[in-house]
Every structure is written in structure tokens, then in C-alpha cells.
């Protein structure tokens, strides 16, 4: 039997927890807005560059170009984007399980992991992590991904890996985000494009090889920056939704505890009253 004092203590505890949760909720929603702006900025340029890259993939003469040529796959690089901090519900678990599912096909995988949550998870499973990036500041993401794109294309061109996949969480809206594993390199060839007439007789200057050489770093940079932005936005959205739910749970708990407290108080008063009435009756006899 819990005493009234214990209940009061618990209400206080839950109340201060709720305050922290509400504060985190607010932080996440501010960050979400910022992340969303960044994401909406990068999506158009990514989409257009992707189309340009795939348009080139449809040309016959690029089939042997290193960025398009399908080599026999011995090593696959996975870039897995997770978060540094928890309290974001199933966000990390979803992206990691999606990636693990994708990995189970007997290939030799090398992993670049972003975020300490993913790092801990993959380390425990003794995966081959060749590089990890943790605690990256939001303002550093843009230049960070530029360097990463350089590193990536060096790794790819030197033949260390024959394939590059990027695993990220695509942000659709605040309530829905889907984990996704996409192949970044080699760039897909023979993709069906919607308006094919654009493609005809198009010229590339100064020549196709130079164009690809200049376009590819930009494309990789934007692909990575976009994947980071998508994941970051999803993370904040997941955290916001979870903190909101936690806040509501805390309010419900406080309500329950308060009514329990009130009942106890009422019972105590009733008991006292009946004692007084009882003793008064006894004395007046």
C-alpha cells in the first residue's frame, strides 16, 4: 500500500520528466524545420543531376567508362547513415535491419558507418567497418559530404570496391519515413527516362569524358548530401513524434496518479470524519 506521500513524490518525478520530454520535443521540432528546409533545397538539384547522370548512362559509348562499367563484384561498400543520439523510436533499428537484410547475399562487404548508434550495432555483429563518422555537426555536413564524395570516388576508382550502396531513411512526411538502400555506383545504365526526345542528338562539350569527370563529383556530392539530409530530417521527425507520444504518456500518468492521490485523500478525510462523528456520538450518550 503506497502512502499519500509516495504518490505525491511520484507525481513530482513524472512532472519533471515530462518537462524534459517537452523540451526535447521542442528542440526536435525546431531542428526538424531547419532540416526540412535544407532537404527541400537539395532535392531539386539532386533529381536533376540524377537525370543528367542517367541520361549519359543511356549512351553506348559510356558502357566502358569507370563510373558506369559493371565490374565483377568482389567488394561492396555500404554507406549506412544512422543517428548519434537515441530516443528516436525505431528510427535506427529500421535502417539497420533494412541494411542487414540487403547485405545477406554472400558478398564481401565494407562498411562506412555514420552515427554512433549504427557503429555500436555493427561492431557488436563484427562487421567490417572501414571508416566511421560520428558526431558530425549540422553545419559541417555540406563540406563533409564533399570530402566524402572525393574519398568515395577515389576508393571506387582504385578498385577497392566495385559497388557502392547508400542506406538512408527517406523522409516523406512527419509521420512516414522509409529506410532505403540505393546503389550509388556504378551509375545505372539503360534507365528508361520519361521524355526520351530530350536525349536525342545531344552534344557534350568539350567532350563526354571531360563532362563526366566534372559532373560526377558534383553528382556524388549532391547524392550524399541529399542522403544525409533525408536521414537527418527523418531522425528529427521520428524524435519529435516519439517525444510527443512520451509527453502524452507522462500527462496520462500524472492524471492517473493525481486521481489516485485524490481518492486516497478523500478516503483519509472520510475516515477522519467518521471517527469524529463516532466519538461525538459516544460522548453524547
Amino acid at each position, binding site marked *: 500500500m503506497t502512502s499519500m506521500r509516495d504518490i505525491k513524490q511520484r507525481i513530482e518525478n513524472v512532472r519533471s520528466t515530462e518537462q524534459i520530454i517537452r523540451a526535447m520535443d521542442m528542440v526536435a521540432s525546431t531542428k526538424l524545420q531547419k532540416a526540412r528546409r535544407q532537404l527541400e533545397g537539395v532535392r531539386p538539384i539532386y533529381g536533376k543531376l540524377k537525370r543528367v547522370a542517367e541520361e549519359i548512362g543511356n549512351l553506348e559509348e559510356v558502357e566502358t567508362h569507370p563510373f558506369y562499367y559493371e565490374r565483377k563484384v568482389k567488394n561492396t561498400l555500404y554507406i549506412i547513415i544512422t543517428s548519434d543520439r537515441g530516443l528516436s523510436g525505431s528510427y535506427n533499428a529500421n535502417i539497420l535491419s533494412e541494411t542487414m537484410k540487403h547485405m545477406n547475399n554472400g558478398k564481401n562487404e565494407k562498411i562506412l558507418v555514420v552515427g554512433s548508434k549504427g557503429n555500436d550495432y555493427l561492431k557488436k555483429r563484427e562487421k567490417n567497418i572501414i571508416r566511421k563518422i560520428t558526431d558530425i555537426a549540422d553545419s559541417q555536413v555540406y563540406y563533409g559530404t564533399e570530402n566524402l564524395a572525393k574519398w568515395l570516388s577515389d576508393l571506387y576508382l582504385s578498385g577497392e570496391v566495385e559497388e557502392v550502396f547508400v542506406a538512408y531513411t527517406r523522409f516523406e512526411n512527419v509521420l512516414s519515413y522509409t529506410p532505403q538502400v540505393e546503389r550509388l555506383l556504378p551509375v545505372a545504365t539503360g534507365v528508361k527516362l520519361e521524355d526520351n526526345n530530350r536525349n536525342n542528338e545531344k552534344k*557534350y562539350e568539350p567532350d563526354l569524358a571531360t563532362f563526366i569527370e566534372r559532373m560526377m563529383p558534383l553528382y556524388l556530392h549532391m547524392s550524399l548530401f541529399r542522403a544525409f539530409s533525408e536521414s537527418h530530417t527523418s531522425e528529427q521527425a521520428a524524435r519529435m513524434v516519439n517525444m510527443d507520444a512520451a509527453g502524452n504518456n507522462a500527462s496520462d500518468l500524472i492524471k492517473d496518479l493525481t486521481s489516485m492521490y485524490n481518492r486516497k485523500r478523500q478516503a483519509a478525510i472520510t475516515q477522519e470524519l467518521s471517527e469524529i462523528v463516532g466519538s461525538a456520538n459516544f460522548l453524547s450518550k
Partner: protein
Amino acid sequence: MSEQQTELVNDEKINLTITTPRGVKFVEEADMLIMRCIDGDLGVLPRHEPVSTVLGEGILRIFNNGIEKKLAVFNGIVEINGTDVDIYTTIAQRPDEIDLERAEQDRREAEAALEAAEEIQMRSLQVTLRRSLVRIEVSLHLEDEETP
């Protein structure tokens, strides 16, 4: 024949779209564009043949109804298709977005450093210098207009 051609040029405009990582930044009409590519300047009129090319570091000049605008555009690629010109770049700045003082400072520092620079630093310093010069020119262009 030649008259007909001039007419065609006159009533058609180029639709210029510049996309940067911060979204679609400029959507403008133009009579003529002159852009800096890696191998020299490229002038574009409406009905240009479809071509994709690589931009260098330089000034994008936009002519519309006799008014010239200048933008600083550093690297990126451009797709030209008839009357549509799409530029995808990481940096495109309007004159009013350029911090002239900083550009001047960059120029002074780069020039000073170039004197003592070694081979390896040379390239990045040259890039800095080139960018600062472009920014200064674009930015001064705005001031000319304001004080006729």
C-alpha cells in the same frame, strides 16, 4: 531570310533556371547569356542546339531587354536545350549577396600568399584569387548601376 531569323530571335526568350543545393535560385528570362565554361566563354541565344557543358569559375552575364545582369557562378554544369538553359551549380551569387570587403581581403591575401607559395598550394590559391576577382567585378557592376 535574315530578317526572318532576327525576328525569331527577337520574339523568343531564353528561360534560365539556376539550381543550387539551396533550391531553385533563379528563374529568369533572357535574350542572351554569356557564360564562362572551362574552355572559354560561351554565348547562348534562344534556339541553341541541345548541348551540355561544364562551367568554370567566372561571370554569368544575362542580357534582357538591353539590361545586363551579372552573377558570379563557380563551377557546375549547364544543360542547354532550345530555349531552356538549366544551370546546376554549388555557388551562384547575385551582386547584392557578395561581401565586397571580404572579396577584397581574399584577393590581397591570395596575392600575398602566391608570392611565397609552393607548387602544391599554388592551385588552391589561384582558385581563391580567381573567385575573389570574379566577386569584385560582379559586385562593382551593381554599384555602377546604382550611381549612374
